């Protein structure tokens, strides 16, 4: 099992969700994030002071999947989030040792979906 973490542009969330659904990945968790990378920041102005903002609004997605779902999940995220401009985001894949469904106590591959 793997845990897939993706940072995407906020306005791409709906598209990514649709692509994931198309690949039968129905379960995911989302958090609000800020990110800083190659993407240029912008300047804030307030009461005569100017400041650079480098932390930009991003959305963080976390999806636990069985091994055979890893590639289609990654592809779906790329498909939904890619615009080809800097700032599109990153996907990270981590090994996942265990997965438990709280409701039932189920464990492992069954619990993921």
């Amino acid at each position, binding site marked *: 099992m793997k845990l897939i973490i993706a940072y995407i542009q906020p306005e791409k*969330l709906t598209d990514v969700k649709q692509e994931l659904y198309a690949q039968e990945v129905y379960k995911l968790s989302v958090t*609000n994030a800020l990110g800083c990378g190659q993407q240029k920041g912008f300047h*804030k102005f307030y009461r005569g002071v100017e400041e650079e903002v480098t932390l930009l609004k991003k959305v963080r997605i976390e999806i636990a999947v069985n091994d055979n779902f890893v590639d289609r999940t990654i592809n779906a995220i790329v498909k939904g989030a890619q615009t080809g401009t800097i700032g599109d985001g990153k996907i990270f894949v981590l090994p996942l040792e265990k997965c438990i469904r709280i409701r039932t106590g189920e464990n492992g591959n069954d619990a993921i979906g």
Partner: protein
Amino acid sequence: MDETIINGINTVWVLLGAFLVIFMQAGFGMLEAGFIRAKNSSNLIMKNFIDFCFASMVFFLVGYAFMFGNGNSIIGFSGFLLLDAPNQSGIPLYAFVLFQAAFAGAAATIVAGAVAERMKFKVYLIYSVILSAFIYPVVGHWIWGGGWLSQIGFTDFAGSTVVHTVGGSSALIAAYLLGPRIGKFNKDGSPNILAGHNIPMAALGTFILWFGWFGFNAGSTLAVGDGELISLIALNTCLAAAIGGITSMLAVWGRWGKPDLSMTMNGILGGLVAITAPCAFVSPGAAIIIGALAGIFVVYGVVWVEKFCVDDPVGAVAVHGVNGIWGTLAVGIFGQKALGLAQEGLIFGGGFTQLGIQLFGVLAVVSFCIISMGIVFKIIKSTVGLRVDKMEELKGLDIGEHGIDSYSDFQLFLTK
């Protein structure tokens, strides 16, 4: 002595009215900002401030002259900068100017909501100066300045047409030419929810507008007299608002299964807009009927506007446009000679005369606004451009146009 006292009282009354109408700007600002997304709310409020700033300046400089100056039946043309400005109001010129400037500001600001979240700030400045310096005063001259509509007997007591229909029809053409916000409509034309970000703030705005509207309507008498007329107007204003809230709530509840607060507030405002023209000429019972229908018109108006893929985030067209027209017509239906109207309204046996005049007049005003503002926006579109670019729209106009977020310390979750 008596005359001084009476002048004094009347001035107090009209100034109170002016203060309240000026305070309505806060109401518009809170309402409209609350109904849009957080990322654009400072931009909306900035428009709100600046259109009123410009409106009061240009009304002082030229607007009053166009509206109340001596001229022809189309436009006034004396009293620029208030120099030798004619004044038939019966109250001190400066009080009258302030009251009228507040109205001009209200007309201008109505459009802000309809074009919210996508119009360039510069464009808004240009259009709003044109509206308050020219469009509004011209219509005002027709109806309140002795112009051609007043000559044929068209009657609009406190501005359902002069202020609200002008604002509402300008809002319609502006929203239409501007196009919808990104994400508002799906490819099949069905609408999505782009929810207002701060409904309590919008509610506050609605309460402030309700409060200010007493000044708007009852102040329009320009005189206190023995108090009977202003009492009637104030009660009518309150009842129309109240029933408008009730019927809109019921309409939305019945149709979609939940009583939507945002629609209820629009219904209250719809009732207020509708009673504005007839408030002095109708009985409280009639005010209730007028407001009740207004509440329903708002709900269906909002839905109907979206049918045409016109995106009006705050319902300005339904509230001010549709009900501005309805209120104007209501004069011809429920108005009473006993209350000072030239003719009896339809249901009092006066036939269709007054109603016909009202219909003709309001259509003339709608046409004038749509055509003239249409031309204005078309010219701007092909020169400066109307909309901010896509990236800016996504990121929000607060940052894009003004450099700073509205809610710096808060975590916002903006996926559309």
